[in-house]
């Protein structure tokens, strides 16, 4: 197996940003999701207080209303994904199961014109960054390929939200081309290093992860290599180090 698909999808995000003449952001992730998974629209909600509570980006008016109505009702797929830590795929909101599960949201979404809603948690282990929401006007499930692509896009959005939330030149540090494979294949050491940095730097996991990425970016090293050095105890980060991307 290779990480080729992830590299292709991340490149699409970078290309979309470049075509707009701007730096990469969650708006590009949403736009690529809409075109590659044939959706009506997409939105990203940040989870600043643990639950979804701040709309970061929407592609259209229906998407915005779907995001807002879930915040207002405190109910819906975007709430459920942060509890289950897996995606919630409601391919047909008119099914009885949806009405039973979301008595407020399901009819509201139908009135707004959504036939299907999919929500993906933007999380890395215990770190909760937010939710990627998607909708279709007519019912229908995501195909296997679309599901895989959206998972990759959700990873990209997660990293962007975390980098953006923890200072530094976050958006520049995305390094879209270089880190997609790292995030997938060398995961265990990156996650272990993140856990170690929570102690070394005395910060929450979300910040430890952002600092790890910022350090790798500033040193122009692969994230997996830096993580490997930390796990092997060849490298320690200090509180005043890595904050702005380097010592």
């Amino acid at each position: 197996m290779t990480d080729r698909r992830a590299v292709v999808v991340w490149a699409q995000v970078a290309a979309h940003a470049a075509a707009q003449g701007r730096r990469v952001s969650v708006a590009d992730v949403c736009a690529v999701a809409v075109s590659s998974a044939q959706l009506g629209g997409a939105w990203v909600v940040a989870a600043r207080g643990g639950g979804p509570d701040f709309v970061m980006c929407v592609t259209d008016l229906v998407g915005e209303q779907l995001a807002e109505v879930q915040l207002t009702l405190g109910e819906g797929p975007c709430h459920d994904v942060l509890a289950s830590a897996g995606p919630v795929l409601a391919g047909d909101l008119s099914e009885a199961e949806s009405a039973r599960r979301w008595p407020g949201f399901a009819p509201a979404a139908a009135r707004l014109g959504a036939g299907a809603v999919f929500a993906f948690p933007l999380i890395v282990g215990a770190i909760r960054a937010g939710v990627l929401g998607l909708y279709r006007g007519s019912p229908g499930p995501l195909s296997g390929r679309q599901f895989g692509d959206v998972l990759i896009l959700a990873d990209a959005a997660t990293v962007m939200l975390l980098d953006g939330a923890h200072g530094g030149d976050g958006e520049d540090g995305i390094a879209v081309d270089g880190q997609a494979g790292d995030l997938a294949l060398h995961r265990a050491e990156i996650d272990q290093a993140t856990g170690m940095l929570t102690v070394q730097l005395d910060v929450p996991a979300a910040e430890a992860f952002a600092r790890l990425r910022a350090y790798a970016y500033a040193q122009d090293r692969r994230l997996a290599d830096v993580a490997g050095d930390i796990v092997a105890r060849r490298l320690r980060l200090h509180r005043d180090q890595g904050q702005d991307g380097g010592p």
Partner: protein
Amino acid sequence: MDTELLSDTFIELADTMVADFDVIDFLHLLTDRSVALLAASAAGVVLADPRGELRVAAASSEQAELLELFQLQNDEGPCLECFRTGRPVTAADLAGATQRWPRFATAAVQAGFRTVEALPMRLRDQVIGALNLFGAGPGSLGPADLRIGQALADVATIGLLHERNVRRSETVAEQLQGALNSRVMIEQAKGKLAERLGVDMDRAFTMLRDYARSSNRRLTDVARTFVDGASADFPPAARP
């Protein structure tokens, strides 16, 4: 062969209809019992991720986990061949397999293993992953052990694919993502505990798992609470 443990294991692996079912605990049961029942020194499970890659979901030891990761990172090894073909792959002599898998065979021998078996986790046409059995002694598992290993993998596969019945609204794909995220959480918790106590990752994992067992909690929940920092003096018995 401990036949009582064997029958208990089949019953436990088939019993996925319980309310607090957890994929990660379930797969650890599979790896641990594979080691306890068969002539294997370590075991690991990889699962297919819809992102287009395999991910390590559970391992009986840090060494087994590293060897699984090594195969995924280097794109070579029995586990990948088994997953791609959907058929068992046997390496009865890893030292003699350096042409077939130059990097993996060398790494596995260095880690102290001499044999490896990769058994598909498959239901009809759907291959969802692979169970790997690593042996430190000479000679591969006998045919009886291999049949039992495959039966354990089969029962676990059916259990996982039927698990959606428990939480009706969730499909296997949704569940699997939650499980893979749990794996990430466990790695974060291992790192935090290893750094705090100055122990290695293997020791950290054992401590987390022992604590989960003794407090009758899911490993995933223990890991989440610990990484979130909600239990400052965790684990209580683990003070050096």
